[in-house]
C-alpha cells in the first residue's frame, strides 16, 4: 500500500489543479520559503480527515480555500483527492485503488467521497483507521512539530504507541 496520486485544486496556495504522481521509495520535496511545501503536507493531512483549523495554521477551516492574490481572485472551494494503491488489500475495500476526496465550499459545506461515491467523514475515518495513516500516529510530522514527542507528557508518548499498534 502506498500513495499513488494526489490532485489539489483551490487548497491554500494551490489555486490551479495540481497533480502529484507518487511512487514507492523516497520522495524529497524542495522549494523556496513560502512556495507551498507545507501547504502540500497540510493538503494530505486534510484529505485524510484533519479537523483542526489551527493544526492547518489557519484561524477557521475556510482559511484553507485559496484566498486570492493581487493578480487572481479568491476561489469558492478547496478540493483534494488522494489515490492510494491497495493491491495488498490492507484497506477494507474491494478495490486495488482507493480514492479519497474532500471538498470544502466557502459556504461552510463539506463533502467527502470514496472512489467517487459521496460518503461521510466517519466512513473515511473507518476506512483508514486500521491502516496506520494520519497525523495522530506521527506518520505526518508537520514543520516545527518534531520536538513535541519529547516535550509532551509520558501519557502522550504512550498514546503514540497505542495508536500505532
Amino acid at each position, binding site marked *: *500500500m*502506498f*500513495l499513488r496520486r494526489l490532485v489539489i485544486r483551490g487548497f491554500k*496556495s*494551490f*489555486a*490551479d*489543479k*495540481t*497533480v*502529484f*504522481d*507518487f*511512487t*514507492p*521509495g*523516497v*520522495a*524529497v*520535496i*524542495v*522549494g*523556496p520559503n*513560502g*512556495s*507551498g*511545501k*507545507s501547504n*502540500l*503536507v497540510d493538503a*494530505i493531512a486534510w484529505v485524510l480527515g484533519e479537523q483542526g483549523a489551527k493544526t492547518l495554521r489557519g484561524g477557521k477551516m475556510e482559511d484553507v480555500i485559496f484566498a486570492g*492574490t493581487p*493578480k*487572481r481572485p479568491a476561489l469558492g472551494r478547496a478540493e483534494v483527492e488522494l489515490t*492510494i494503491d491497495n493491491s495488498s488489500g*490492507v484497506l477494507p475495500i474491494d478495490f486495488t485503488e482507493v480514492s479519497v476526496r474532500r471538498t470544502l465550499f466557502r459556504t461552510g459545506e463539506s463533502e467527502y467521497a470514496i472512489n467517487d461515491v459521496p460518503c461521510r467523514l466517519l466512513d473515511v475515518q473507518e476506512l483508514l483507521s486500521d*491502516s*496506520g*495513516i494520519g497525523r495522530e*500516529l*506521527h*506518520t*505526518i*510530522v*508537520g*514543520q*516545527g*512539530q*518534531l*520536538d513535541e*514527542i*519529547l516535550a509532551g507528557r*509520558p501519557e502522550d*508518548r*504512550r498514546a*503514540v*504507541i*497505542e495508536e*500505532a*499498534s
Partner: protein
Amino acid sequence: IVEIFGAAFQDVAREFNGVFARLFPGGEGRMVLTDPDDLLNSGVDVEARPAGKRVKRVSLLSGGERSLVAVALLFSVFRARPSPFYLLDEVEPALDDVNLHRFLEIAAEFRDRSQLLIVTHQKRTMEIADVLYGISMAGEGVSKVICERLETPDGAQSEQPAGAD
C-alpha cells in the same frame, strides 16, 4: 487492550535500542515505562545519554541531540509498527553534518518498507531521493510543481513536468 500495548511497547523499545545505538554511537538510550506495574495506565519516558556524557535528562540535551532522540523514537515506532507512508516536514535543520549523515542512513532504509516523503532545504537530504519534487511560486502567489525522477540504480531517468492540466 493491555496486551496489545504491552507487546507494542516491547517491540518499540527493542527497536529503540538499535536505532539509538546507530544515531548515538557509544551512547546509551532506552525507553522506560513510568509505572511498569500498571500497564493499563503507565506513561512512556525516554532516557538518552550521548557518548562521554553523564547527563541522562532529555531537557539538558542540546537542540541537535534532542532532534536526534525524537527521530530515534519516531523511527522505532515506524519500524515496530510499520505504516504505509511517512511525511516529514523539515525535521533535520538542527543536525550537524555527522548526525545528518546518520539520520539519512536510517531514513533511506525505509525505502524498502514504506513510502517516505521528506520536505527539506538540506542538499544532503536531496541526495537520498528516488524522486524530487520542486515547488515554486513563479511570482503570482500560486504554487506549481515540477517532478524529476532521479537516476535510479537501474539507470531509468525521466522528467515529467507534473502540475496543472
